[in-house]
Structure formats: structure tokens, C-alpha cells
């Protein structure tokens, strides 16, 4: 035969999914919360998120150019890191905070370890932890929605810890009309985004359900079975953003089904320990980072049972 045939090994057909299509789904799922963020906190929210994304994508491209790797910014993973970084900043943030945060997230949180798929911690949370440690004042300058650069306000979780009599109405908490990080406040829109990701099979239910369920259970018990306070714990902080979008990061969470459940329970437990017993009102960031580090160990002990090795009767 004159023309050469392609002789690769099976399978000879592939699914239409690609890394980019998966990441695009995550971006789509974050759009409602982004719109809410701009609606509640104004154009500064848009500028902050834009700077954050720009810095993340720019850093990734720059590092890949310098180290002579294939530039993979088209896979949109840096866009997600930038989006999540921006979502984790307070509305009054100075312009350089998102830029530094995303730089640290991509450079130290991701590229140092080999880029996409190899980061053992969530890059955006690594960036956030760095910012909180370095500029604690700017990172906790919460304001009420619609009143940017005015008086600082307390988040529901801070009020829950200090003066629960001043808590915002629960409906505002669910909708997102409360002080908090840019993207974390609208619980309902984050849930809609999560539902989309479940429908598209981008994430499994296991981590979010185990995580939120554990927080709910502990909150319910420790608030003397007060459903209202429990609801504030669930909707009032960074739990929705963390449980649906951060804890489910593929690279830094377990690949096994049982492992995902354990990961969620562990993150929920740590979140509530920090919220209840530390000086900080919120604990989502550090609990996820801690569980990220535990992921290889969790995977080791939660390997699936191989077909034909017990379980079902012969």
C-alpha cells in the first residue's frame, strides 16, 4: 500500500471531553457567583477578579516560557485559580493584593510542583493563606454590600462567635447580601454552580456533601440543636465556595470514592474546630489545605476493592 496507516494501540475512539472543556465547566459554574459579587460589591469586585485572573494566567505563561515548557494557559486552569483567588479577597482589597496572591498561587502553589495535576495543595488557597499571613489587616477588611470604602462590618461568622444578637437576617445570608469575601457570600448561587458541576459530572457529590454535612452536624450539636445558628454556619462563611469549588480541586483531593468522603468529613471537622475553638471566626482555608496534605495518605488507605477479590458471594 502506498500510504502509511496509523497503527496506534486500542482504543481507537476517544470521548469529547478535554481538560479545557472540564475547566470551562468550572468557569461557567462560577459565573453566577461572580455576577452576584459585582452586583453586591460594585465594579471593584470586577476589577479585583480581573486583576487576579490576569495575574494568574500571566504568571503561568511567564513561568512556562522561562522554563521552556509548552504554554498551557488555554486549558483554563489558571483562569479558575485566578477566579477563586479573587473570590477569596475582601471587597476593599488594594489592587496589588490580587496580583501578588495569584502570582504566589500559580508560581509556588502550582508550577513549582510541575503544573496542572501535580499541585498537592489548592493553589488559590495557598495564595490566600500567604496573603492572610502577610497582610492580615487588608485581608479581613469586611464591609457591607453596597457600602464599599466606608465602615468595616462583621461577617456572620464573626457575629455568631461574638454577638449573635446582631446577626444579619438569614435570607440575606443565603442570597449573599452580607459582608464577606467577594465570591463566597452568595450561598444560593454557589449551590446552583455546584448543581451544574454535578449535572456535568465534573465533580462528584461526595466531598461537598460530606464536608457540608459534617459542618452541619457539628454546628447543630454545638449550638444546642439550634437550626438557625446551624444555618448561619452553613451559609454564612466560605463553606459553600470551599466545599463545592476548592475542596473538589482534582489535584489536591483524593481520587477514590471512599477517600472523597473521608476528605470531606476531615475538612468539616477541622473547619468547625477552627471556627469554635480558635481566635479566627473562619476555618475553611486551613482545613482544606490540611486535608490537601493528607490526600496521598487517604488515597493509600481507600483504594477500591478490585473486581473478583471478595465482596460479592462467589
Amino acid at each position: 500500500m502506498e500510504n502509511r496507516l496509523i497503527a496506534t494501540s486500542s482504543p481507537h475512539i476517544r470521548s469529547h471531553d478535554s481538560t479545557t472543556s472540564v475547566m470551562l465547566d468550572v468557569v461557567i459554574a462560577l459565573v453566577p457567583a461572580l455576577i452576584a459579587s459585582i452586583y453586591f460589591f460594585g465594579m471593584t469586585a470586577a476589577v479585583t477578579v480581573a486583576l487576579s485572573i490576569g495575574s494568574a494566567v500571566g504568571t503561568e505563561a511567564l513561568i512556562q516560557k522561562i522554563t521552556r515548557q509548552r504554554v498551557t494557559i488555554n486549558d483554563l486552569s489558571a483562569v479558575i485559580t485566578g477566579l477563586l483567588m479573587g473570590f477569596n479577597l475582601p471587597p476593599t482589597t488594594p489592587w496589588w493584593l490580587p496580583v501578588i496572591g495569584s502570582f504566589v498561587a500559580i508560581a509556588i502553589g502550582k508550577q513549582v510542583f510541575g503544573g496542572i495535576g501535580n499541585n498537592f495543595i489548592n493553589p488559590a488557597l495557598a495564595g490566600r493563606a500567604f496573603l492572610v499571613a502577610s497582610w492580615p489587616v487588608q485581608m479581613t477588611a469586611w464591609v457591607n454590600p453596597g457600602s464599599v470604602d466606608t465602615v468595616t462590618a462583621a461577617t456572620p461568622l464573626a457575629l455568631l462567635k461574638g454577638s449573635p444578637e446582631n446577626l444579619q437576617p438569614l435570607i440575606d445570608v443565603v442570597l449573599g447580601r452580607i459582608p464577606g469575601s467577594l465570591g463566597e457570600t452568595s450561598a444560593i448561587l454557589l449551590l446552583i454552580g455546584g448543581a451544574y458541576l454535578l449535572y456535568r459530572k465534573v465533580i462528584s457529590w461526595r466531598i461537598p456533601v460530606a464536608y457540608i454535612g459534617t459542618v452541619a452536624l457539628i454546628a447543630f450539636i454545638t449550638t444546642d440543636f439550634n437550626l438557625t445558628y446551624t444555618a448561619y454556619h452553613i451559609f454564612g462563611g466560605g463553606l459553600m465556595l470551599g466545599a463545592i469549588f476548592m475542596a473538589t480541586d482534582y489535584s489536591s483531593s483524593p481520587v477514590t470514592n471512599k477517600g472523597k468522603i473521608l476528605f470531606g468529613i476531615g475538612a468539616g471537622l477541622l473547619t468547625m474546630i477552627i471556627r469554635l475553638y480558635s481566635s479566627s471566626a473562619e476555618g475553611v482555608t486551613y482545613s482544606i489545605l490540611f486535608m490537601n496534605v493528607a490526600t496521598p495518605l487517604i488515597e493509600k488507605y481507600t483504594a477500591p476493592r478490585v473486581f473478583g477479590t471478595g465482596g460479592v458471594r462467589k
Partner: protein
Amino acid sequence: MNKVGLTFKGGIHPPHHKDRTENKAIEIAPVPKEVVIPLVQHIGAPCEPVVKVGDYVKVGQLIGEAKAFVSAPIHASVSGTVKKIEKRPSPVGARINSVVIATDGEQAIHESIVPKGKLEDLSPDELKTIIKNSGITGMGGAGFPTHVKVSPPQDKKIDLLIINGAECEPFLTSDHRVMLEMPDKIINGTRAIMKALNVDKAIIGIENNKPDAIKVIKEAVKEFPDITVAELRTKYPQGGEKSLIYAVANKEVPSGGLPMDVGVVVQNIGTVVAISNAIETGMPLVERVVTVTGSAVKEPKNLMIKIGTSFKDAIDFCGGYSEELGKLINGGPMMGIAQYTDEVPIIKGTSGILVLNKLDSVPPDPTNCIRCAKCIHGCPVYLQPLMISKNSLLGRFDEAEAYNAMDCIECGICSFVCPAKIPLVDSIRMAKKEIVEKRKKSEGVKG
């Protein structure tokens, strides 16, 4: 997506692509000018040629004798003159000693071909002998000699026969057409195997994307209460032996074990028909139904075709190539083997010839694993393909073995679903090969 029907855990729903041929009746392909019949078409020992260059042979005549137990004899599919006995490319990879016959078009039938009598009059041992002497092998792809499967060791009690009519590979419709057009042969063959195995229960499993076949076979089994039809959920790899047994009998074949370890024997639809023919007419396995399909063939068809016909002749009979050829596959797109030439013969295990254009053939560019775990969720034997592949590529074959690489059935799901387009099966196969080598070596040291 339908949720009806028996099934297994894991698996995927690849596009079917069966519409090209599923409604086309089986056509009888003309006898080609020349056939090339490999002397190994099965898993097991090669056959010894019993003809010489220049000999005149007739249809059904023995040309390759099986000397070992795990082997299956080879017969002439045409009448004509033996031209050469030499190594030729085979669709399963290596160059294999083959008998090349120039056909005379007479299709004179060999004197040894006589009906074997009624099923009622044949003993289980006689049936096994007929199956063995007719060169019948598994026709779903792997090609394990059938007489070995129907002769389990004394300590393995077989209580269920499953006939595999799942045909879960996309594109392929040969079993589908056989079920529609030859239901009586399927019943006869099934009853013959039941008798040979001494089992009183048989189940014919059919995926529910073939409702017409389910209807026809249900009708055909009406008067045989010991044969039933199981409707299977359409999901790949429903026709994989382990997945099929799990779906139909709710039993897991033990890791490293065989279906007979759970008292089950599985036979493919084509194999069952071949057995029926061998008893009724005495004709050994010399022809089969092959689906010729894909994006680069003019008129996709289901062909009844002589073993030894070249892929090229089969494609020419389907109108030839419709555009520049990219890939030529023996079998289906999930587990089939890509060929480097169209001068390879159709063998007993060729269920389909997939002809793909350039566009469908270009392998995608792999990128980093993003650990999405789609390969884990799809794996029908519950492995962690990403872990095996990673360790294999790093040369850490002991770790790959610890992740149960040897349980991989190479169904191709992990590579199919991977959004990063990583050819996971390739590296898992590599690990399996290394592990087998290592085990052989350590056995050698012990011995």
C-alpha cells in the same frame, strides 16, 4: 440514557455508530482469487501444515493439524491449489506461517464433510470431538479454542451457560444480524453446548439497544424452557466476560480466575452458530460474518465471508475506500488491533473491519493528568488506571503490580474517557508485560 436491564458497575456509553450496518442483511461475499489462511488463529499452539505446495484442496479439508490440546485445527475455506506456505502478516500482529491458496471458483466440498447426525443421538464426548475437529474457537475476538472451554476439569462444576449476544463494541453489528437471521442455528448450537457441558440452564444475554434481536430470540427459545433471554443494559463493556457474568448471574469471576471458577461458561453468538453448522452439515469453521464499516468505506456491510479473504478484498466488495485511509482495525474501536497494511486475512476472530479516515485516526495529544478520576469511575474491574499508568511510565512496575495491573482487561475505557487524552491502556499493557517477565524470571530462579 436508559436505566433498564441487567448490568455491572462502572463502564461507559460510547457512541454506538451501529446505524451504518444494523439494518443491512448479511450479504454473501464472493470467493476471492486468493486466500491466506494463517496456521494460528487462536490462543494456543500453532498448527502443523498437512498440505504441500501444489496440492489441490477442497472446501473443509484439513490443512493445519492441531498437535496440542490447547489448539484448534485449520481448514481450507475454498477449493483450489496451494501456492505457498510461508510467513505472512496476520491481523493479530506477528507474521504467521500461512497457507496461500489460489482459488478455482468451484468451491468443491471435501469428501469428509458429512452431516454428523441429530443432536439427540450424539453423546457429550462425540459433541466435544466434533467441536474440536471443526476448529471452532471463540469468535468474539480472543479466539480461545472452544473444545477446551467445554471440557472443564473434573473439579469445576459448570451449572450455567451464557451466550454472549451483547455486542457492546461500537460499530459492530455482525452478532446482531446473526441473531436476527439465524435464530434456529443459535438455539441448536446452544443446546449442543448444553449437552456437551451437561448443564440444564442457558441464558442468552443481549443488550437492549437491539430490541429486534431480543424479540426474535425470545420467540425462538419459546419451546425450550431451559434457555432464557436476559436483556442487558446498553453499556460498554457489557460483553466482557466478567461484566456479562456479573450482570446475568450476579457472580464475580475471581481475580486471576476463569468463568469456570464460578461455574459458568460463556460462548459468543458466532461460535454457537459455527457449532450448529459443524453438526448439521459437518462443515468446519471456514467462514464467518464480518461487519465492514467506518468513515472511509463506501458501502458499509455485514458480510458472510471466507476465512482467509484479505481485508482489501472485503473492502473492495463494499465499494472500496471512500476517502484517504487513516486506520484499519481488526475488530471494534475499543479493543480492536490497528493494521499496517490491508493485505491481512480475515481470521476466525475477525468480528469486524473498521475503516477510518485520516480525521478519525489521528491520535490526540496527551497533556498532564488532572486526576479527575474518570478512569477510576469507568473501570469495570475497579482499578485505579491513573496510578498504574503513572508508575508504569516511571518504570516502577512493582508499584504497578501492587495497584493490581494484572487484573486489567484492557477494555480501553480509561483511555477513552481521559480528558487529558493520556493513552492509559498503553502504559498499563507495558506494565503487565514487565510483570509477566518478572514473574517468569523469579520462577526460573526458584526452579
